[in-house]
């Protein structure tokens, strides 16, 4: 059994991925530090997030060296979450619309932070 799932790979590949994860994390922090807004901000966040997640799963968790049977069994089910997320987004929109209809615009008064920083 032990030989079947054996995952021994050169040390250098882990070190490279490690460095890469540091670099990508720095980039994603810079997105906030520089203060990008709107679609540019959101797409950069998603791109860096997926890159990091992909590297961790593929290399650190050895997924690219596993057989397809295991890869599909683990990675396909979470894709169903995207339907759930989509439904909940529609639901969230509807709730907001209903709330605005019945309660009008916000009646919340911020005690501080009245001036915009970004």
């Amino acid at each position, binding site marked *: *059994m*032990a030989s*079947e*799932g054996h*995952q*021994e*790979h050169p*040390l250098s590949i*882990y*070190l490279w*991925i*490690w460095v890469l*994860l*540091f670099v990508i*994390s720095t980039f*994603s*922090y810079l997105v*906030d*530090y520089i203060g990008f807004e709107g679609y540019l901000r959101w797409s950069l*966040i*998603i791109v*860096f*997030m997926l890159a*990091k*997640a992909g590297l*961790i*799963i593929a*290399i*650190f*968790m*050895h997924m690219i060296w*596993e*057989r397809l*049977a*295991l890869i599909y*069994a*683990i990675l396909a*089910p*979470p894709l169903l*979450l995207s339907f*759930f*997320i989509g439904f*909940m*987004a529609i*639901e*969230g*929109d509807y*709730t*907001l619309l209903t*709330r*605005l209809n019945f309660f009008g*615009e*916000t009646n*919340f008064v*911020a*005690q*501080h*932070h009245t001036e915009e*920083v*970004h």
Partner: protein
Amino acid sequence: MGSNVTESQTATLPEGLQGLTHDWSSDKQAFYVPWGKAMMWFFLLSDTFIFGCFLTSYMNVRMSTRVPWPNPSEVFALSFGGEPIPLILIAIMTFVLITSSGTMALAVNYGYKQDRAKTAALMFVTAAFGAIFVGMQAFEWTKLIVDEGIRPWGNPMGAPQFGASFFMITGFHGLHVSIGVIYLAVVALKVLKGDYEASGNYEIVEITGLYWHFVDLVWVFIFAFFYLW
């Protein structure tokens, strides 16, 4: 013909509880990995759904509130005597967790080389980074609860759902890190004692590593969606 074969096959099989154990242990293997590793993957898959539900509900309440969402960049800013630096503590926490993921990957590597001392040492280092992460999280929670007055039901900066989402998501993740630190320490001690020396099978290190990398993986999503968004 097919049904005949099935019929004659089932006729010779044991019935009842004996049949159940027979059927479930009849040497049919789908995944050519050690069972412990397959089971850890399935556990992580179920955990994915839990965190997926948390993040989805967070998305839902953030989308549906009429009240402005507090700006995480300011809420989590820290100042070291001068201008507040946005999100700096969270950035440091991210780097701490990535560092621990790296040391864990090296531990798995040395495990396969059957280098007992290095494997255990790297696992202890990983656990130490995990403990540092939890410590920083405790600091962050204290600051938010005591200084900023953020509660699960409200806060002075904006949408009350902010607190509920924050404590739920980061609390559950912090719990995972804490359990991971204990898990790592236990396995590292066993490695050090030489429990796996006789068999030469260090698969357990890789399985523990899977859990630890997953904790880092979840943080990647929390960092992106909760702190940066």
